[in-house]
């Protein structure tokens, strides 16, 4: 897998610092897990986090904090938290391993050749995350964004004026960008998408299907 499109550095640094909202954290995290180059960058920021932790002015913890911690260690058995999601596991070929701890909703058809599956998040952020599947060779509708869109290609490819995006490639779109992606012919294109705001489809068909894209 040759990755040629990476998240911008400040997004990676925010990811490493744990500052991104959940949907963005997920998309950047899946990219980083598969991209050694960005993984190194994130680790470098984590090193700086460690240095910051060493240098920070200590603030006293509760006077009995150590005893509390020891008793909680001894009271609670050492078990891994059981995964909470029971939906969408096991027999699902198109769900990448990195998403296996998330609850993923049923496939919904948006338009001919275009379907999506919502990813259940905690609701702590404002962006939504979903898997978007497009048929090979399809021309996505011309659209603009009211917010930002982070896209990670999991399978297949698409191209737009910014270049060709294959597996592992990361694409960042905001309301300045007018997308008109074309899906590659080699197979369906599956993307992990985090989106704030709404897609604004241009044209009559876009207006017809627009509401479905709102999840």
């Amino acid at each position: 897998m040759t990755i040629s499109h990476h998240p911008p550095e400040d997004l990676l640094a925010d990811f490493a610092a744990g500052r991104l909202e959940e949907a963005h954290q997920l998309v950047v995290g899946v990219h980083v897990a598969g991209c050694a180059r960005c993984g190194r960058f994130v680790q470098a920021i984590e090193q700086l986090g460690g240095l910051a932790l060493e240098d920070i002015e200590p603030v006293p913890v509760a006077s009995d904090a150590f005893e509390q911690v020891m008793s909680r260690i001894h009271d609670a058995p050492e078990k891994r938290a059981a995964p909470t999601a029971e939906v969408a596991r096991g027999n699902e070929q198109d769900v990448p391993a990195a998403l296996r701890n998330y609850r993923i909703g049923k496939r919904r058809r948006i338009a001919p050749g275009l379907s999506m599956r919502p990813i259940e998040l905690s609701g702590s952020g404002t962006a939504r995350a979903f898997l978007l599947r497009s048929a090979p060779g399809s021309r996505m509708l011309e659209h603009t964004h009211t917010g930002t869109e982070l896209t990670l290609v999991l399978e297949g490819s698409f191209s737009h004026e910014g270049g060709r995006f294959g597996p592992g490639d990361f694409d960042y779109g905001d309301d300045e960008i007018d997308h008109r992606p074309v899906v590659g012919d080699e197979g369906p294109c599956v993307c992990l998408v985090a989106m704030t705001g709404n897609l604004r489809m241009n044209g009559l068909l876009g207006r017809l299907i627009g509401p479905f894209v709102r999840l």
Partner: protein
Amino acid sequence: MIAAIRALDAPIRAKAGFPRRLEARLSTGTSKGPNTKVDWADLIGRVASTREREAFKRLFEHFAPRIKGLMLKAGCSSDEAEEIAQNTMIAVWRKAGQFDPATAGAAAWIFTIARNLRIDLFRSRARADRLRGTSELPETPDPAEPADAVMSRVQDAARINSAVKQLSMEQSMVVRLSFVEERPHPEIASLLGIPLGTVKSRIRLAMNRLRDILDEEA
């Protein structure tokens, strides 16, 4: 001011009237400072292998107040910061066996645990659960990592360490203040006594430089 910071690079000079805290912050912090004489990685190893309470206590006394300090800096309430500090130390005890000194420094490892617990706290709050209401620590789902990626991490560790050290002190500081402590740019500007525009450009330069160094050594 920049010249002043450079002068402080020589540790002795820092005593000249500089606030203690900033002096500490301006040290490189890389296993030379007064706080890092203790081999924290070794203590974590002892917690892992023999469940040694004394080793854990030393880790606790060093790191718990620092985690609390960092979380307060990053905008947590006092209760949240205390909770994250305690939960981080519980996780240090439980996950000590997973710590690999070849891939990460002790402080960086503990930083990532605290970071994940803070993320969990915000998410569980969003789910209207109380963290303390559940006996087990919720886990942030980690993106799955293939075994060969773990191997390459070991090989990368030295490279990453050297890249971080190649950042100038001003660059390292500005990244830490902005991303780790989450201070707004105007605050960083007044803290370092530099114009706002310089803060922004310095962050950008630091990011690019880090990326370049890491790419060069690839």
